[in-house]
């Protein structure tokens, strides 16, 4: 299961595939975080991936020229070395911290089907979101509104007669 997600992630870096988001959602289900898994599928597969697909459809990706040209010499080998080093360092840190992870195992978390009802995860997460973190939740909604409105303003083609600047050389962005 883990290998599938890792292979799919390699596919993201090489081709344009998004199977790894579903792989991570499967890991969430296996961990018992059901609400996060469903939100992962809805938000990523339902919104973000579709958004990427729309942009690909609008702009088009030419996959022929991408990996041949190398503008900065030695960039790709150095990047690969850095990636392997990052995996090694993080893996060493995780394996080394393995024993200290065993503190307080499994208490305080309502897991569906084991020590609570079938919607225990959602209830506990909702109580946390709307109890302790309600201010951050409101800020998140403000952030989403601002992001959507700003994107509409950025990508809109303004008419020339509106007098909002002539948009530089391209003429389409303002």
């Amino acid at each position, binding site marked *: 299961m883990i290998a599938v997600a*890792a292979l799919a992630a390699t596919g*993201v870096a090489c081709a344009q595939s998004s199977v790894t988001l579903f792989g991570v959602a499967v890991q969430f289900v296996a961990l018992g975080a059901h609400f*996060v898994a469903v939100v992962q599928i809805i938000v990523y597969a339902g919104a973000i991936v579709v958004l990427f697909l729309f942009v690909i459809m609008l702009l088009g990706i030419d996959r022929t020229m991408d990996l041949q040209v190398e503008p900065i010499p030695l960039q790709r080998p150095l990047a690969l070395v850095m990636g392997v080093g990052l995996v090694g360092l993080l893996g060493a840190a995780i394996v080394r911290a393995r024993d200290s992870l065993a503190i307080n195992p499994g208490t305080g978390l309502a897991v569906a089907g084991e020590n609570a009802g079938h919607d225990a995860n959602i209830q506990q997460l909702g109580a946390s979101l709307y109890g302790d973190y309600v201010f951050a939740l409101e800020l998140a909604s403000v952030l989403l509104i601002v992001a959507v409105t700003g994107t509409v303003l950025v990508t809109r083609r303004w008419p020339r007669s509106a007098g909002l600047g002539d948009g530089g050389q391209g003429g389409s962005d303002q």
Partner: protein
Amino acid sequence: MIAVIEPTWYLLLSALLFSIGAVGLLIRRNPLVMVMCIELMLNAANLSFVALSVQLGNIDGQTAVFFVMVVAAAEAVVGLGILVSILRARPGATADDLAELKG
């Protein structure tokens, strides 16, 4: 179901996903794929959040995942909007062509 796979493996997978995203961000020149790699790195962070939340028995990790998803969605929306408006003016531009901020 909790103790079937210990969280070390989830953390290792998370590190692997993060590194793949970082390498992809470094070696790809298409800005669209670079944004996808950033999403992959955020997903890796989410996975480690959930794994440690389950291991430590604290729901706050899953709450943090929720906010990370909100930020990821906002980042994707703004990034793709800027990308569409750049690529509309200059079709086929790669990340190296956009090194100078002249629009």
